[in-house]
């Protein structure tokens, strides 16, 4: 039997008093795609950081090709052939693709006895490398001109320049469109055939089922299960991750009330949102669905006219939208939170004018409101003074929702509300969205996860090339094939 390309034996890691990994065994063989899944806080990132030399295990050992190895730093891991592609790509934005690819050891020539960068060879080498991966990009383009997907492929191409035995991909598809995901998968297949071992960390279980030869599920810092291809389904993975919790489809269709929000300025396919209704926007990343949402919140700089509860209102900025009772949960959490501030300050920020009495913030009132919100949304831990940067992704997302619940808005615009958060928090947020609608609110939610939309929405609008191409009702039963066709996916 061949030895694993990299393995961890009885590895434990503590941060202060908390145990992030407890006695973990893990193996990755050459030529396999090994998926690593688990909820936030389950220990995925800690394991990835140990394998890439960022953290050192407190107990246990890491071996490479059966030899005990000490990965004391990221550069030691790279020297050992372990290359990590993190979510935030490490490329120099102001340099060209070719310069990035050859950064560190550019080809040189001698001019008058001095070593000078050989631009022509640099370009040729970069072109070769891109062609090998089936990419047709001009190596002279600056990296900041590329899309995220293209930059990711460049980062992988850069990784492959070095001797790469093991490639670690951390949530590689979180920001990709379907077409780009396909291109990435082709590349992963290619590398697998070349004999690299690939560790694939993802929240997207459908991808894991499709791609992975084996899958390790972590729960609370321990290995919950290791399964081979064909032996796991999405439902099994969820059970292993959560220890038994399952996703519930939402309750019956609610009775829609009067129109709470109507887009007056674009007449033919205007968005009309009713009370007690969850309206979904289904669309790919570049479909324009996100723009529609931001536009209604005054976040695109346009001046628009809205009818809110029957009254005509002009909106030019988020402040205007908030004033008429609209809240917005952006797709990036750094847009929703002030990371160095406490849970309390974040929750109260949009409501400062509401809780001010005679120009002064009413502390008691604010504290009561925050306590109530943390209870209602189950934000953990229950310490309002904790900076939000110390919370898990799911709890951070709940704080953003809490900001608008505290303000008492009547309309919620949600952009990818459960992106990158774990299954349990996802279910809680779905329940909150339904409850909000049930109590008379109107919700407009965009998601690239169609299953999520069919779970929580009363009606789904399909968006393709900035137009609404189809409308599907819950009462007719959502037809996923029809939805796929309508969004052009």
């Amino acid at each position, binding site marked *: 039997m061949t030895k694993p390309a990299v393995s961890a034996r009885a590895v434990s890691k503590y*941060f*202060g*008093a*908390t145990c*992030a990994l407890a006695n973990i065994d893990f193996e990755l063989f050459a030529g396999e795609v090994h998926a690593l899944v688990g909820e*936030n*806080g*389950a*220990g*995925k*990132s*800690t394991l990835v950081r140990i394998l890439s030399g960022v953290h050192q295990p407190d107990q246990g050992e890491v071996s490479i090709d059966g030899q005990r190895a000490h990965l004391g730093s990221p550069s030691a891991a790279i020297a050992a052939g372990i290359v990590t592609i993190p979510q935030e790509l490490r490329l120099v934005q102001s340099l060209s693709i070719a310069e990035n690819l050859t950064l560190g050891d550019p080809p040189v020539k001698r001019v008058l006895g001095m070593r000078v960068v050989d631009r022509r060879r640099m370009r040729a080498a970069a072109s070769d490398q891109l062609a090998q991966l089936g990419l047709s990009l001009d190596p002279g383009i600056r990296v900041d001109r590329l899309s995220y997907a293209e930059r990711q492929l460049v980062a992988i191409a850069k990784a492959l320049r070095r001797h790469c035995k093991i490639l670690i991909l951390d949530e590689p598809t979180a920001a990709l469109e379907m077409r780009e995901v396909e291109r990435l998968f082709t590349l992963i297949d290619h590398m697998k055939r070349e004999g690299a071992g690939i560790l694939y960390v993802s929240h997207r279980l459908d991808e894991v089922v499709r791609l992975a030869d084996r899958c390790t599920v972590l729960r609370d810092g321990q290995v919950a299960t290791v399964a081979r291809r064909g032996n796991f389904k999405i439902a099994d993975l969820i059970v292993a991750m959560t220890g038994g919790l399952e996703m519930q489809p939402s309750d019956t269709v609610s009775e829609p009330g009067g129109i709470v929000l109507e887009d007056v300025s674009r007449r033919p396919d205007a968005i009309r949102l009713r009370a007690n209704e969850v309206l979904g926007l289904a669309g790919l990343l570049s479909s324009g669905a996100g723009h529609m949402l931001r536009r209604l*919140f005054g*976040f695109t700089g346009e001046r628009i006219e809205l009818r809110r509860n029957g009254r005509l209102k002009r909106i030019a*900025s*988020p*402040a205007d939208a*908030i*004033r008429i009772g609209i809240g*917005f949960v*952006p797709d990036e959490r*750094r*847009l*929703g*939170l*002030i*990371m*160095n*501030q406490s849970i309390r*300050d974040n929750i*109260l*920020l*949009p409501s*400062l*004018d509401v809780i*001010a009495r005679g*120009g*002064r*913030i009413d*502390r008691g009132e604010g504290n009561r409101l925050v306590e109530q919100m943390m209870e209602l949304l189950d934000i953990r*831990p229950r*310490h309002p*003074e*904790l900076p939000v*940067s*110390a919370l*898990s992704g799911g709890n951070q997302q709940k704080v953003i929702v809490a*900001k608008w619940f505290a303000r008492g808005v009547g309309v919620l615009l949600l952009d990818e509300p459960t992106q990158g958060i774990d299954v349990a928090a996802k279910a809680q947020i779905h329940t909150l969205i339904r409850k909000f609608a049930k109590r008379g609110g109107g919700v407009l939610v965009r998601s690239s996860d169609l299953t999520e939309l069919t779970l929580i929405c009363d009606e789904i609008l399909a968006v393709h090339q900035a137009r609404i191409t189809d409308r599907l009702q819950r009462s007719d039963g959502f037809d996923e094939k029809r939805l796929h066709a309508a969004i052009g996916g």
Partner: protein
Amino acid sequence: MRRHSKYTWPWLRRFNLVGQAPLITLIVLCLATALMTDRFISPLNLTNILVQSSIMAVIAIGMTFVIIGGGFDLSVGSTVALAGCIAAMVMVRFGLVAGIIAGIAAGMAVGLANGLIIARLGVNPFITTLGTMVLVRGVVYLITGGAPVGDEGLPPAFIAFGSVRFLGIHYLVWVPALLLVALSWLMQATPYGQRVYATGGNREAAYLSGVAVERIIASTYVWCGGLAGLAGVMLAARLQSGQPTAGEFYELTAIAAVILGGASLHGGEGTLYKSIIGVLIMVVLGNSLNLLNVDSYWQRVAIGAVIIAAAATDRLRSHR
């Protein structure tokens, strides 16, 4: 998935020594100096320290507004000179009150210009205020012809303001003390203050929460300019004239004091009273080096080192 074991017991945070580092530094500095020379704790010397700190404290309060809001202001030194000279010129002709108002208004005007250029046009604060620093100093020389203003003819009440005491404490010291109380309340207890912190902490997130970020940022520069103007008036009272060369390098001392006081150059963090502790650290350091007869060239080296140490602590803190 980052785990913060530090917050396992949140009550521990209240006894957090890191947060009180500026105060501890100041106390240690005072004790060390008092042990080495008995001239330090004499009433005369302590009064001297307070008076010397008072003008810089007013500037540092304004600088703290700007730095909490995520900005930076290099133009306060020149603004001090501009306000002092304008106040003296107006005072000679139109009297005490008009002069004081003109000085403060001149500072607010410089701040408003800075604020609009930075918040509306999005020009980098460092470059903008570097520009106004040079420009305003040029204007000062233009309007004064390079000579001191109002040597004679300043109202006696104004001269008295620069040296007379109330309840045993100099008027000059009362100014920052009262400002500290009023403006700390503004920053901690009003929506405006919370919005300044939010804007400095994350401008985009604040905007999406309904904060008028451009207006908030511009307002911090108006505060900074206006308080630098007030400081200029105080300095003119103390020097009994408007000096066109006044206030040189004040901007650097003020920024260093604010950072020493624990504010973050990344914005969103800082406390007014700690900035004043930062000012006291700078002044006491200079005072003790003087009392210990350290060569004045070496004093510059020491103060420079303190500024770098403060910036390095800021960096380490943001890496924690």
